[in-house]
């Protein structure tokens, strides 16, 4: 291997390669083993990811705050361009490596209980493959490999969403997710191509590092000037558009967010790992990697899209009845926060929120998984015709499932951003910086922080609604079907352990010893530029207080609405309710406009193909057939006929002479007589 920095550490390199390779090995072994290995394949994957976690911990301890360096080796050469395969070590890769393996471990343990033994082999093949792709994605050092693993992550997500491939919904959902992600992939690919044309390298450090190529390029006279090359300025915008598409598709931002709620058709443990904690964070991670590329206008666009997505998803989450869909929209909303934080230059806060969100959203999904599992159990036992994910059937589960309840409350508080949780630290960081950012600009930029504040309030409301509907009050199924017997619990230790672990990780001590000030979080400090100045101003005191007051008020309001049954909420017939309930009609719009247009276009092409092209070919075949028929006729009746005639003549003559040799003595005599007579007659005549 060739090094480009002096302080290369071969232990770290080996550990990283092993950390990414172990899940791949587990996946390969599971793939090759026969399908009846059952729980053994599950534990194999758990061991692999445990190994990855330990190795990632070693890597993290050596790389964190130790500067940026990379190792690489030539992979292949096309023309004069050599593409390298290499690893990049900086704070971001080390953190993501640790985060992904840390989230994946509890999910793996949980899955060993959650997935049926017969399906575990296939499930863990996919899951380990996903872990490999994601772990590799965060440590590669060039755009080509980044793109490759980006695709693999999308592909394994596709496999896992459609894990229960006999369900129609799952198949539709994974197709939708795949197609949406393809749109993003096209964006990323075009951005990579533009960057390569401009800078002649795929290397992330050379491109985006300190004093890298992107730092040294600028706009002048409508040209995008790089040290060695120049392009019209519009290409920079296209590159941004491509990256944005990629981010929007992977991180489920408006307008490409609709696949994520549908992706909830996959197993809940998959939703927890992929569609809440890790894969959807890949978009934010990509933003973090290519951050220096964007100029201020583009960052503003990111901020606006992020803020709008956060608000949109939060309003939709208000009225959904599907437990997992609420969480899915909540995920979209929180991802909107992260994108917006990137846009307002709160790079550190964005990544901080990514990490904290990964823990508490994974926790919430696993809790939802336990609840759904138990309700499904009741459904199967009594053969009820209900949707086990519908929160309208739940209620009063607090006493039956205390650990799940506690874990959900911790996760929800972190999601709302109540003090003492990790969510408070990261979310308030974003909000405060949003206010600071807007202050230095025109007045209408204030819409963004206000919008995000409003979103926080909405978050508090839908979270409170979820908690109250699921855990408080009376169990609704019991009211609808009075004769069912309930014996539901928190489940086995494989359910409880991940919940407890993740709940502890969702509290503040993991990130900061000071539960109130986000600036003191070690993780936050790890991403700050060296010359960052802590600006103490009024927002640092007001915003957290404001949020908490609003949150508490909103939670109380939800309590009043849902538990004391006061009529304080919008009517279910109002326009706003319908807008929210039908996901702002975005899916309907896509269905009506995009899908129908595409289908109509395809049908037109199909018609054209069938009628015009096929018609032409049919005419040609008809002409050919006619010609062939004529040739066949001529062959049959003229050439063959002539030959047949000859054979018939020959045959006739032959038969004629043959008939004299019939073996009958009298015929011989007879013919002799005739011959003699003929001879005599001829002699007489001549």
């Amino acid at each position, binding site marked *: 291997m060739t090094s480009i920095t002096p302080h290369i550490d071969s232990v770290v390199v080996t550990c990283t390669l092993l950390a990414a390779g172990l899940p791949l090995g587990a996946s390969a072994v599971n793939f090759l083993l026969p399908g009846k290995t059952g729980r053994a394949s599950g534990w194999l994957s758990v061991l692999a990811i445990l190994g990855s976690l330990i190795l990632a911990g070693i890597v993290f301890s050596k790389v964190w705050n130790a500067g940026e360096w990379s190792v690489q080796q030539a992979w292949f050469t096309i023309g004069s361009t050599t593409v390298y395969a290499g690893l990049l070590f900086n704070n971001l890769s080390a953190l993501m490596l640790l985060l992904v393996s840390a989230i994946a471990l509890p999910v793996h343990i949980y899955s060993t209980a959650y997935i049926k033994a017969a399906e575990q082999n296939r499930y863990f093949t996919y899951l380990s493959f996903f872990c490999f792709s994601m772990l590799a994605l965060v440590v590669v050092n060039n755009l080509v490999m980044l793109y490759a693993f980006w695709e693999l992550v999308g592909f394994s997500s596709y496999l896992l969403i459609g894990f229960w491939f006999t369900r129609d919904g799952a198949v539709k959902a994974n197709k939708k997710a795949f197609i949406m992600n393809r749109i993003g992939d096209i964006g990323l690919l075009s951005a990579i191509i533009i960057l390569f044309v401009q800078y002649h390298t795929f290397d992330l450090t050379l491109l985006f590092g300190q004093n890298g190529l992107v730092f040294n390029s600028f706009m002048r006279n409508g040209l995008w000037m790089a040290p060695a090359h120049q392009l019209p300025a519009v290409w920079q915008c296209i590159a941004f558009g491509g990256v944005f598409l990629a981010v929007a598709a992977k991180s489920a931002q408006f307008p490409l967010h609709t696949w994520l709620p549908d992706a909830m058709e996959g197993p809940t443990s998959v939703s927890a790992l992929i569609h809440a904690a890790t894969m959807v964070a890949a978009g934010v991670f990509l933003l973090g990697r290519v951050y220096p590329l964007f100029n201020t206008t583009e960052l503003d666009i990111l901020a606006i899209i992020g803020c709008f997505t956060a608000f949109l998803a939060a309003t939709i989450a208000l009225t959904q009845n599907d437990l997992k869909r609420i969480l899915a929209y909540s995920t979209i909303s929180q991802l909107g926060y992260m994108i917006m934080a990137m846009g307002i230059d709160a790079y550190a806060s964005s990544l901080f929120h990514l990490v904290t969100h990964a823990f508490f959203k994974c926790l919430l999904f696993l809790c939802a998984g336990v609840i759904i599992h138990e309700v499904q159990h009741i459904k199967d036992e009594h053969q009820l015709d209900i949707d086990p994910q519908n929160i309208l059937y739940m209620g009063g589960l607090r006493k039956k499932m205390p650990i799940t309840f506690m874990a959900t409350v911790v996760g929800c508080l972190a999601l709302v951003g109540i003090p003492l949780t990790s969510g408070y630290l990261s979310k308030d960081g974003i909000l405060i910086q949003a206010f600071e950012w807007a202050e230095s600009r025109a007045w209408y930029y204030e819409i963004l922080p206000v919008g995000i504040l409003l979103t926080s309030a909405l978050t508090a409301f839908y979270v409170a609604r979820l908690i109250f509907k699921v855990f408080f009050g009376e169990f609704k199924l019991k009211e609808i079907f009075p004769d069912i017997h309930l014996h539901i619990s928190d489940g086995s230790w494989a359910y409880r352990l991940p919940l407890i672990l993740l709940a502890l990780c969702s509290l503040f001590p993991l990130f900061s010893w000071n539960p109130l000030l986000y600036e003191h979080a070690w993780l936050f400090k790890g991403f700050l530029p060296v010359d960052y100045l802590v600006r103490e101003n009024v927002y640092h005191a007001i915003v957290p207080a404001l949020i908490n007051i609003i949150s508490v008020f909103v939670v109380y309001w939800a309590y009043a609405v849902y538990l004391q049954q006061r009529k304080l909420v919008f009517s279910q017939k109002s326009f706003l309710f319908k807008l929210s309930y039908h996901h702002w009609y975005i899916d309907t719009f896509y269905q009506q406009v995009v899908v129908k247009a595409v289908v109509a276009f395809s049908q037109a092409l199909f018609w054209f193909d069938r009628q015009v092209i096929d018609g032409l070919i049919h005419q040609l075949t008809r002409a050919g057939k006619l010609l062939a028929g004529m040739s066949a006729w001529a062959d049959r009746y003229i050439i063959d006929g002539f030959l047949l005639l000859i054979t018939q003549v020959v045959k006739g003559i032959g038969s004629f002479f043959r008939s004299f*040799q*019939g*073996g*009958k*003595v*009298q015929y011989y*005599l*007879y013919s002799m*007589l005739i011959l003699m007579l003929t001879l005599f007659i001829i002699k007489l005549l001549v």
Partner: protein
Amino acid sequence: MITLTHYLLVSAALFSIGLYVILSKQNAIQILIGIELMLNAAILNLVAFGKFDKINNGGQSFALFAIVLAAATTAVALAIVLNVYRRYKTIDPGKINQLKD
């Protein structure tokens, strides 16, 4: 006055009948009879020509030889017919066609 021509006409008629019998009958014995008829036509010719010959009784004595020989050949032919019958269970010459290739 019976002339040579009358003898020859009778002889030719006999010969023709014999030929017809040989060609048309489906029984070996009848064919044999046909052969005898033809032979007798020839002997009749011998006798007729002998009557008008300068040397006396040359033709008649030759005819006697011919009759004896005819009797001998008929005996042989009957033996053959008997053997044919044993072998093929028929004496229809049309059905005994193994002479063909």
